[in-house]
């Protein structure tokens, strides 16, 4: 039993890296644009399918394929903000309308992809899935290592961007106080569009990574968004550090729980942790926003 522990930890970190990538976008969009994006899982799904398309049909190698997925997801994020979110914001719509519009987008994207390609399970061909690495007692494919590396690099870039660039501080200012940010001349429209683009890119890359590791299918977004919600709540809505810690934590907890109990019960743990955090500290472990926020 004990000799499996390093292997479990590694598996947990791989899974957790995916959760982090998806949850980061969700938490940024919530923290800055103040929108709970129910279509976030679909950015992830679209990323996976774009990568599948270019790798499988056009014969482009896997790594550039991820880049194409990221670019495509960026376009989706941009269009979403322009066509759906901005018109609602202009009218100062109640939060419930944002939920509805993103639910509509989620249904639209899932069923469009389902209509175009059918419900079959696909896998993006990745050459790294066949290479095994063996360190100590731990076995993992190069692909899984790639997931962790890509995740780490992206988190690093994101933190640098948000902390040390002008656009990044504009984002933080907008998150803290939208009106004050507008008054000091920040182009908040641009900040919101940028936030959506960043969020979509992160989700798209995660999708392209998972689509090669597990399966690519039209409803994959629905599974991941629930996990992302758990991570965002536990980490604190709007907190980057919180999402990283909670995402890796959830990956680890789920992997370890998978050994101890039947796999169907694992998801109950995530939900339970989320509810406990909501009740004891709704702002999450790293949260800045209060529990009464609308």
């Amino acid at each position, binding site marked *: 039993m004990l000799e499996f522990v390093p292997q479990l930890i590694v598996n947990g970190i791989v899974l957790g890296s995916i959760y982090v990538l998806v949850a980061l976008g969700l938490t940024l969009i*919530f923290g800055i644009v103040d929108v*709970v994006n*129910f279509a976030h899982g679909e950015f992830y799904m679209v990323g996976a399918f774009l990568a599948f398309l270019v790798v499988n049909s056009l014969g482009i190698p896997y790594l550039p394929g991820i880049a194409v997925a990221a670019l495509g997801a960026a376009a989706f994020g941009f269009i979403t903000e322009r066509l*759906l979110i901005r*018109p*609602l914001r202009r*009218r100062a*719509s109640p*939060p*419930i*309308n944002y*939920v*509805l*519009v993103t*639910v*509509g*987008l*989620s*249904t*639209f*994207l*899932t*069923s*469009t992809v*389902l*209509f175009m390609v059918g419900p079959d399970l696909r896998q993006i061909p990745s050459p790294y899935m066949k290479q095994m690495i063996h360190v100590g007692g731990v076995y993992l494919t190069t692909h899984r290592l790639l997931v962790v590396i890509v995740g780490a690099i992206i988190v690093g870039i994101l933190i640098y961007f948000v902390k040390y660039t002008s656009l990044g501080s504009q984002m933080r200012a907008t998150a803290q106080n939208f009106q004050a940010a507008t008054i000091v001349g920040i182009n908040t429209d641009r900040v919101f569009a940028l936030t959506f683009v960043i969020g979509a890119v992160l989700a798209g890359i995660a999708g392209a990574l998972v689509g090669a590791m597990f399966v690519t299918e039209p409803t994959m977004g*629905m599974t991941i968004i*629930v996990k992302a*919600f*758990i991570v965002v*709540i536990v980490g604190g*809505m709007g907190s980057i550090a919180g999402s990283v810690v909670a995402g890796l934590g959830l990956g680890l907890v789920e992997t370890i729980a998978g050994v101890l109990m*039947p796999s*169907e*019960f694992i*998801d*109950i743990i995530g*939900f*339970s942790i*989320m*509810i406990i955090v*909501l*009740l004891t500290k*709704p702002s999450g472990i790293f949260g800045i926003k209060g*529990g*009464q*926020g*609308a």
Partner: protein
Amino acid sequence: MIFVACLLPLVFSEAFHQHIFITIVINSILAVSLGIVVGYLGELSLAHGAFFGIGAYTSALISINLNVPFFVALPLAVLFAGIMGYLIGIPALRLSGHYFAIATLGFQGIVILMIINLVDLTRGPMGLGGIPPVGPYHIFGLTISFLQKLPYYYLALAVLLIVLLITRNLLRYKFGQAFIATREDPLLAASIGIKTGRFRLLAFSLSAAMAGAAGSLYAHYALFISPDSFHLSESIYIATMVIIGGRATILGPLIGAIVLTAVPEALRFAGGLQFVLYGLMLMVVVIFMPKGLVGLLDRFKRKSRSVQLTTLEG
């Protein structure tokens, strides 16, 4: 309106149409009951599909295992769904806004996972079959079998009417005033002696109990239930009815339920594009009709009224 509702299935007597009417009535119960939470507490619950499922499973399991008739199983399902609503409401209602919505999403997930995993009781993902139908009853030499669609429609309609009456009375009298006061300004409401926490909890449990009634009706109509019907997507679907219809009225959820049940059926001609169009419609409605269909109606009314006024002045 009740008159029209009673006549409809006689005019459209095809089985398929009658099936849609029954679905509309069940969905109306769900939407009106969620409307209490959305409209009068100002909160979005994403656990309504779970209460619907709790009602359906309770009713089905009681009538299968204890061999009791529908008219005993229905109140028990309502009661149990209400109790579950109460228990979930205690922690969830400490939150509001986004946080409340996501907490209910968590409870929705837990309930559905319980239904799936308590295989010994619920037969898990395989679904639960062999649910006894309602009746047949012999009254005054007449045999009424609720296996037929027409009698079942009237049965469901009767339940809907009760739900509508309760909801209307709830909002019209002291209770309703307290609800609205609580939604508009919880602090002020508390200061004039309204126990806001208790009202929120009461409204939430009541709404869950009504969803339980819908679940019981659904179980004894479909005669087979599986966890698939009570997923998060169902909760979102019910929430959509309420918001599309227009919040804070009873009429809104009712219209939303009718439209959102009929539209996907009407879109069937589009085959695989059915839900593509549906998703598209949702987005268009939110962008162009922010107050829902009822809001559109109001605007139309106001316009015609102002036209009248101008003609009077002229």
